[in-house]
Structure formats: structure tokens, C-alpha cells
């Protein structure tokens, strides 16, 4: 492998890892606050690409307006799923809410087949993002740099929100103990809704950039990234935001590097994530950043 090729693969790995990280954060935040694996997260991600597609292709609005609208709509969709399908089951056995999440996932997927047809659509290409840059001997899509930068900025904002704002402290308190959080005067419902909103909006940013990078969208497109990002979250230690980011990068970089160094395995690209999942569950089930917190008496 030449240096140029290595560089190209590294860049690709980092930008794919960034996308995984953005989506994985939603899994980990929801898990942290509800102990729920939100199986519908991949579909929320998928819907964001359709929101953006229709805004640009059908309504012919400027892309920056569309992106903002799509992100907000996706946030609202995530919050609606929580309100309708998860909140009523919050005191029910954990398995009920998990099954409800699977239901939401299938519902959104099938509804989108009915509404948008199962046939893939071509995601609009926006020169500002999809144009090529020449770097020495290689050509790189602008997106390859934009994606990690956008991800880094959003991550910084998220970390600030969670560690320094009142809402952020409330989120961490609710994640620890709903009842005691209520005693503090925290509106637990609002805090959980906010968590879903943030997780879904991050997935929407990931979705839009995904659409630009892999410009074909379809109702089933959320399944594989959804599964992989769930794996990334488990890999990093579900419940931990830094873990989700690390897991996303390990997965993104690992996948690209595997295919690059062993082209024969290209067909097994998706299997890489699952092998990683099995390994982590066997050898460190709490994930890279996860740890058991022992309660003191």
C-alpha cells in the first residue's frame, strides 16, 4: 500500500467513523437515561435523509434551510416516538418497552415504503459538499473533511451541554435515579424527551451527511447503520458518550482498513462489526469505557 493510499483510507475511515459516532450517541444517551435500546434509532436516521431529500428535490428550498428543517423534524420524530410508544410503558417490565421499540422500527420502515416506495432515490448532490479537492496525488471529496469537523463541533457542544448546563446535569441525574431526580424538582418527562430530541438530531446530521456521501436513500437504509452504531455503542460501553464516539471510530476505521488491507474480505465488510460485537461481549461485556459502578452503603 502506498502512502497516498493509506492516507486516503485513513481519511475515509475517520469520516465513516464520525458518522457512526454521531448515530451511536443517540443509542447510548437513550440507554443511559431509560436503559432502553432504541431499535427505532436506525429508522429515525433514515427518515432524516428523506426529510432532506423532499426539502431539496420536491420543495426546492435552499439546502441550508432544508438541513435545519430536516434536523428539527427528525428531532420531533424521535420525541414523538418516545411520547407515544415508550413513555406509557416506562413502568412496565423492560421487555415491553424493548418490544415497543422494535414495533416503532418496523412501523416507520414500512410506513416509509408505503409513502416513498421501496425504490431507492438519488440524494441531491451539493457541490459545496460533494466537490473534490486535490491533495498531493490524491483526490478527496470535501465531505471527507467536513464530516469530522462537523462531528467534532457537535461533540464539543454536546459535552458542554451535558457537563455544564442545568439541563445537562438534570439528564445525568435522571440517568442515575428517576425518583430522586423528581424529588429535586426535575421534570423527568421533559428531560427524557430532550434526550430523545438531541439523540435524534445528531442522527439527522449524520443522516444528511450520509446521504451526501452515499447518495442513494431507501427505506431499508437505516437497518445496517443502525445495527452497526448500536454495536459501536456497546463496543465503547453503552451509556457512555465518549465510549460511543470511540466505538464509532474503531468500527469505521477498522472496517475501512480491513477492506483496504485484505480486499478479498470486501464481501465480509458488514460482518466485521458483528465479529467485533461477539468479541467484546465475550471478553469485556461492559465495553471499552464502561465500568460497573458499585453502590456504597
Amino acid at each position: 500500500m502506498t502512502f497516498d493510499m493509506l492516507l486516503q483510507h485513513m481519511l475515509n475511515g475517520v469520516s465513516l467513523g464520525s458518522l457512526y459516532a454521531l448515530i451511536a450517541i443517540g443509542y447510548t444517551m437513550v440507554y443511559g437515561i431509560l436503559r432502553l435500546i432504541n431499535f427505532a434509532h436506525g429508522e429515525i436516521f433514515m427518515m432524516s435523509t428523506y426529510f432532506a431529500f423532499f426539502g431539496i428535490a420536491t420543495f426546492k428550498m435552499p439546502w441550508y434551510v432544508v438541513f435545519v428543517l430536516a434536523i428539527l423534524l427528525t428531532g420531533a420524530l424521535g420525541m414523538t416516538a418516545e411520547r407515544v410508544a415508550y413513555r406509557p410503558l416506562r413502568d412496565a417490565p423492560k421487555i415491553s418497552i424493548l418490544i415497543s421499540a422494535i414495533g416503532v422500527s418496523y412501523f416507520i420502515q414500512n410506513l416509509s415504503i408505503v409513502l416513498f416506495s421501496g425504490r431507492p432515490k438519488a440524494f441531491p448532490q451539493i457541490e459545496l459538499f460533494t466537490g473534490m479537492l486535490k491533495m498531493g496525488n490524491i483526490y478527496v471529496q470535501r465531505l471527507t473533511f467536513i464530516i469530522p469537523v462537523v462531528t467534532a463541533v457537535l461533540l464539543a457542544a454536546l459535552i458542554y451541554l451535558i457537563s455544564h448546563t442545568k439541563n445537562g446535569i438534570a439528564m445525568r441525574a435522571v440517568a442515575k435515579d428517576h425518583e430522586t431526580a423528581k424529588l429535586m424538582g426535575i421534570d423527568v418527562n421533559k428531560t427524557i424527551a430532550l434526550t430523545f430530541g438531541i439523540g435524534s438530531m445528531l442522527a439527522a446530521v449524520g443522516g444528511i451527511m450520509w446521504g451526501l456521501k452515499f447518495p442513494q436513500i431507501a427505506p431499508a437504509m437505516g437497518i445496517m447503520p443502525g445495527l452497526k452504531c448500536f454495536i459501536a455503542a456497546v463496543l465503547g460501553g453503552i451509556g457512555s458518550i465518549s465510549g460511543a464516539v470511540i466505538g464509532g471510530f474503531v468500527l469505521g476505521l477498522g472496517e475501512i482498513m480491513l477492506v483496504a488491507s485484505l480486499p478479498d474480505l470486501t464481501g465480509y465488510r458488514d460482518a466485521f462489526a458483528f465479529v467485533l460485537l461477539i468479541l467484546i461481549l465475550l471478553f469485556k461485556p461492559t465495553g471499552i469505557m464502561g465500568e460497573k459502578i458499585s453502590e456504597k452503603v
Partner: protein
Amino acid sequence: MLKIKDLIVAYGGIEALKGISLEVEEGKIVTLVGANGAGKSTTLRSIVGLTKPKGGAIEFEGKNLLTVPTKDLVRLGITLVPEGRRVFANLTVLENLKLGAFYRNDEKEIKRDMEWVYELFPRLKERTWQTAGTLSGGEQQMLAVGRALMSKPRLLMMDEPSLGLAPLIVREIFEIIKEIHRQGVTILLIEQNANAALHIADKGYVMETGRIILDGTGKELLTNDEVKKAYLGESVH
């Protein structure tokens, strides 16, 4: 200030509270003592709305508490130090204290109350930046009380603050309860440690398997033969 009338609570089909009545007068220390499983925590949890009663009434200053959601109680001036402390182990001491003042916006006053809490519990001040999970049991209890005080309560309820703590720390906590009371906070204290609780209480209730079987001033109960035998570990001749 707080009135409970004929409160009935059932878990599944089993009644944990079989119609209890009690009253907390403003400015007093009232204690509810009883053995493990008597229904003391259930009583407190019903007051704050974490357990839904089957029957009866709970009033705070004439307001029906049964319709007030848990999260709004701090705004009425009611706070609970829950059984088992329930500090937010993943947050720092400072963040825990700030959460106590979550509903408040009066930054200046919050700062002053924080100073007061640190004065009451100097050990918390030393541990401001530590996560609560790394504190000892006694320190966690202090943090739970400090956190409750940050809400500027008028009625402070405590569920077995002495449980599992060394005698020296228990004495310290009871001294602080008296100090908090001197500052004008009404106190409802739940204890298995009947001796210590009755010594500082203006009024006491004794609970047994979901019923209140005795009540009186702290002094009266301390000298009551039945209480002595059952709760103070003294033999009566």
C-alpha cells in the same frame, strides 16, 4: 402544617398502611419510629407522591398533596432525604448540591445557602469536586441532607438518616438535625433508632405493621413501658 388522615396503601393485595393518621405542626420536630417493615418509608413515599395511596388524605397547609406531582413538591417547600441516601453517585458533590437547588433561580441566595451547607458539613467542602460515589456512607448521608437543604425547605423529611452509620457519625447527624430545626425548618424524622429520635422530638408516633399504635411527646414515649420494651431495648420490671 402536614396532616395525614386514614392513609391506606397497598402493594398488590397486601396493605402496608392500614389507615394511619398523623400531624406535623409547623416549627416542630416530629418523629415516626417503628421496626423494619412497619410502613415508615411507605408513609413518606406517599407524602411525596412516589407511592399512590388506596385511600385517605394528605394535606399540606390545607392543600391536597395527593394531586401534586412529585416534581412540584420542592416548590411547596417540602423535601425528602430518601432512605438509603440516594445521592447521585456519578455527579460531584457540588453538582449534587446544585441539584438540590434545581428549581431555584435566585443565584445569590443559592450561593449563601451553599455556604451554610458547607458550614454545617465542612467535610463536604473538602470534597466539593469528588464524585459522590467516592464518599463514605456518613459523608453521603451528609450530602443527602445538604442537598435537601439547598431546596430551602420548610418541611424537611428524613428517612432513617442514621441507618448503617457509626455511632459517632449518628450523633453528629442528630446534632445537625437540631441545628437545622433551630433555623426554623419543620422536621419529620423517621427512625428505627427510637432512642435518639425521641430525645430530640417534640412529638412522636410509634408504628407497627401498618398502624400507629402510640403517640405522645418525645418524653412521654421515652418513659412509656411498652416503648421501652419494644424499641429501646430495656427490660421493664
